[in-house]
């Protein structure tokens, strides 16, 4: 059986891992290489490096990290943050990442998805979206809006229509990050994950809001996500990955131990 994946996400800024709270406050959460090694030992299913400096210097630092980590760690690595051009995608893959997560650039230049998927295969192109809930009258279907530039800028684009387009353009996987839930530790946006999982064929990775093992269980079952991304609950040692996997297994979810 295909296992549900647990993916720790390292937000890297100037070579340090920081935890984001509602996309703003930074707090140092350790050395990314130390953390990556720990997650590898704990049998994380993948690792995500998210470059939140997203400048040329920041990119060089993240690529250096990926290179160092990938010499020692044999699980898939995804790099995201600040990708602007097709050449950025190529360089990140060449530098040793297995997947590239594309967010704002896809809104600015949607063709970057087609071109990247055609050149490197859909399997290494991840479509990431930051979404904020829209106010809808009671009784209406929930709706979400796409935000870009690290969740700072509204686009007016409907999230459900946008994920359809990303899939049609060739992404092999989607990461759904809820701005409302991000950093709150109140749980993932289950409705969002379910709504997207119901309309696309590709796997969904849930992101934003994780505060407990129960939240991960919820989004992998009710939320129909294939994988759960989490940051602070692992970085600060509230939970270890085996602890979360034990919990999920006891509740009947297939995980890789």
């Amino acid at each position, binding site marked *: *059986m*295909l*296992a*549900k*994946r647990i993916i720790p996400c390292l937000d890297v800024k100037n070579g340090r891992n920081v935890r984001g709270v509602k996309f703003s406050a930074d707090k140092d959460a350790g050395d990314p290489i130390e953390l990556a090694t720990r997650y*590898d030992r704990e*049998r994380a*299913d993948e690792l995500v490096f998210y470059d939140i400096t997203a400048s040329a210097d920041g990119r060089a630092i993240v690529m250096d990290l990926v290179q160092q980590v*990938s*010499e*020692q760690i*044999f*699980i*898939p690595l995804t790099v995201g943050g600040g990708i602007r051009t097709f050449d950025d995608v190529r360089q990140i*893959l060449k530098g*040793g990442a*297995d997947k590239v997560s594309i967010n704002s650039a896809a809104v600015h230049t949607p063709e970057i998805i087609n071109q990247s998927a055609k050149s*490197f*295969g*859909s*399997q*290494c192109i991840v479509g990431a979206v930051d979404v904020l809930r829209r106010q809808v009258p009671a009784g209406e279907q929930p709706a979400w809006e796409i935000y870009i530039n690290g969740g700072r800028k509204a686009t007016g684009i409907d999230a459900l229509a946008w994920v359809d387009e990303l899939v049609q353009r060739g992404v*092999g*996987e989607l990461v759904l990050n809820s701005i409302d839930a991000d950093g709150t530790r109140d749980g993932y946006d289950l409705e969002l994950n379910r709504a997207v999982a119901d309309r696309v*064929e*590709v*796997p969904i990775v849930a992101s934003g809001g994780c505060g407990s093992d129960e939240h991960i269980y919820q989004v992998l079952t009710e939320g129909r996500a*294939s*994988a759960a991304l989490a940051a602070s609950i692992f970085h600060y040692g509230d939970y270890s990955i085996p602890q979360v996997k034990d919990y999920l297994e006891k509740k009947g979810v297939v995980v*890789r131990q």
Partner: protein
Amino acid sequence: MIAIIDYGMGNLRSVEKAFEFLGFEARIVDRPDQAEAATHLVLPGDAAFGDAMRNLRQAGWEEAIHQSIERGKPFLGICVGLQLMFSASEELGTHQGLGLLSGRCRRFPATERVPQIGWNQISIKQDVDLFDGVPDESFFYFVHSYYVAADETNDCLATTDYGLEYTSIAGRQHVFGVQFHPEKSQDIGLQLLKNFAAIN
């Protein structure tokens, strides 16, 4: 020396460094003559079947691979590399493969999420050296939308379940193919690569 075939497709460095980590000499080669001195041949791949096959032919690899296998060199196909070992694929049209083994590549049924991404288990069907220290039901990391339907039961060394039971490890004598990425499958994946490198 283990030669890793570079035909312009996929992340080859991760395969190379997995062998290096295990203490084997591995080299990425892009011309068949560079693989002459190799003891083992590895064909990785992440691309679409048709493009991959075209590149292999253009660089003269199709013939070189057949010759090397006839000379008895162990061969390992990884991911699309496994699929290319078979007769044909239905990915974006019909394409002929290397024909080392008989069978076709088909798309996963619409009941499942496609691509399959993540860790899935193998069910071992034949006891071969490649499985030394690899327990039945071990998890490996998979990423693919197409699977191989092998014509010969004997060529199926292990299966995996994803909407249907399909061949995830194929092989005959010293020729092997794995649908997953052993170089991304932690200790168990490295064990399998080590077993392959130990075959002579």
